[in-house]
């Protein structure tokens, strides 16, 4: 029996197919103008690659912010539940997932059964999300993908005093005018980011093992600083953690499918 999970976010869409509890395949695309089209495109790309069709799917679950408009989904669930479920499947000992995306940041405490024990989320303020790293790196004149590596060359992390991403932009310009080094400012930006994420994650209570996902997990500077602040070593994932939501949705599909 084949089941499917599909996660349509604000930036990317993912699809996962499962067969008898094992991952058959997964696919990631950048979003299209509508959630419906993103879902179709990512699922059809995956089905095509595996020479399958919609008829082969027994049950499909959708998640993500576009989950209610997915035409082929039999049910939909919140991304929090799906993330927890997917994370537990990939790393059974995981108890906390920190997900820092482009426009939000969430921390989920996962139960030993993969259920959600608790979670906190910030999607109201750009500080502590990937968007603030984008804005800050632009002010610094560094590609956002370089912010991590550049920060590792810092002698000291300069404290960024403003919280608001709009105010930090000016603060960074002033630091550059004062002749402070790009690496030291980059380290300061990553430190401010790590502090925000630590504050949020602290509210849900950190339990080991801890995993970090989302675009910001690709910034080595933030991962290193946040790990030190929380006194944890983040676990590695056997698959691209970006598929976690879709994977969790597919696992729910397997449970919900008529036997």
């Amino acid at each position, binding site marked *: 029996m084949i089941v499917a999970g599909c996660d349509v976010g604000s930036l990317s869409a993912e699809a996962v197919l499962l067969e008898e509890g094992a991952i058959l395949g997964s696919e990631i695309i950048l979003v299209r103008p509508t959630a419906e089209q993103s879902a179709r495109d990512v699922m059809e790309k995956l089905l095509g690659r595996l020479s399958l069709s919609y008829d082969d799917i027994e049950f499909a679950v959708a998640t993500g912010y576009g989950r209610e408009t997915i035409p082929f989904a039999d049910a939909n669930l919140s991304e929090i539940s799906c993330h927890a479920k997917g994370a537990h499947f990939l790393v059974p000992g995981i108890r906390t997932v920190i997900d820092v995306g482009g426009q939000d940041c969430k921390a989920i405490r996962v139960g030993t059964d993969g259920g959600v024990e608790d979670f906190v989320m910030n999607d*109201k*303020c*750009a500080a502590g999300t990937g*968007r603030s790293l984008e*804005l800050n790196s632009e002010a610094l004149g560094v590609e956002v993908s370089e912010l991590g590596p550049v920060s590792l060359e810092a002698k000291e992390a300069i404290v960024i005093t403003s919280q608001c*991403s709009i*105010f930090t932009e000016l603060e960074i*310009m*002033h630091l550059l005018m004062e002749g402070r080094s790009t690496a030291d400012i980059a380290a300061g930006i990553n430190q401010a980011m790590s502090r925000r994420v630590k504050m949020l994650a602290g509210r849900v209570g950190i339990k080991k093992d801890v995993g970090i996902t989302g675009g910001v997990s690709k910034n080595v500077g933030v991962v290193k600083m946040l790990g030190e602040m929380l006194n944890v070593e983040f676990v590695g994932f056997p698959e691209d953690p970006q598929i976690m939501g879709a994977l969790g949705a597919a696992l729910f599909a397997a449970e919900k499918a008529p036997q």
Partner: protein
Amino acid sequence: MYAGCDLGAVTARVVIIEDGAIVSSETMPYKKLPVQAAVEAFEKALSKANLSQDQIDYCVATGFGKKAVPYANADSAEVVCLNRAFRLLNTDVRTVIDAGGQSMRAINFNEKGKVLDSTVNEKCAAGTGRFIEVMAKALELPIGEVSALAFESKDPVAITSQCGVFAESEVITYVNGGRDRADIVAGIARSVAAKVSSLVRRISLEEKVAMVGGVALNAGVRKYVEDDLGVKLADLEADPQVYGALGAALVAREKHGLADS
């Protein structure tokens, strides 16, 4: 003669007083160099009234850059300066909203001028002049036009994010969607007013209510603040931007008196 300098996050303002009346004032917006702006504003205010610096007996600085004003003899808190200014002008005002470039505060005082309560936001750009500036840039309009244009709107857009970064994305989406600029400007004004009003509601709102600071120049925001709070904002006896500097000059007069005795 006494001088007050209010060095804000985007503007430097200087007021010179003699016998409790304004003899000269100057407002200087700046982009990068606050100290230089404070110096230039002082020089211009002096030359406007044909004065030289040694004729100033005492000078007090206030605002975000109050410690950095090189010619000031002392500095004083924003709340104190605003309080002094409203004891001289608009004396019937009990609640002051100061909406500046990077911060926003609300103050409530009793009929004797004693400060009863105050609150401040300087952490978040929402509701500040910087927010309006970011949106003006997204609209490709000069900031001065993101004001009265609001009155031409019949159907203001809804800006759902409070965060300036996320609101900017919303504004860009509206611009790309071909929405009428007046509707977008009105939506922005309404969003700023909502944030200002929610700050004011944290303290007791007593009439009359006055709005000062750079954002008070925005007629659209003023209108929505009046709607939100259900009050009419007081007509001001001076430029809404100089109340802080005027208060600082009044504090200078008080401090100088103390230094004499």
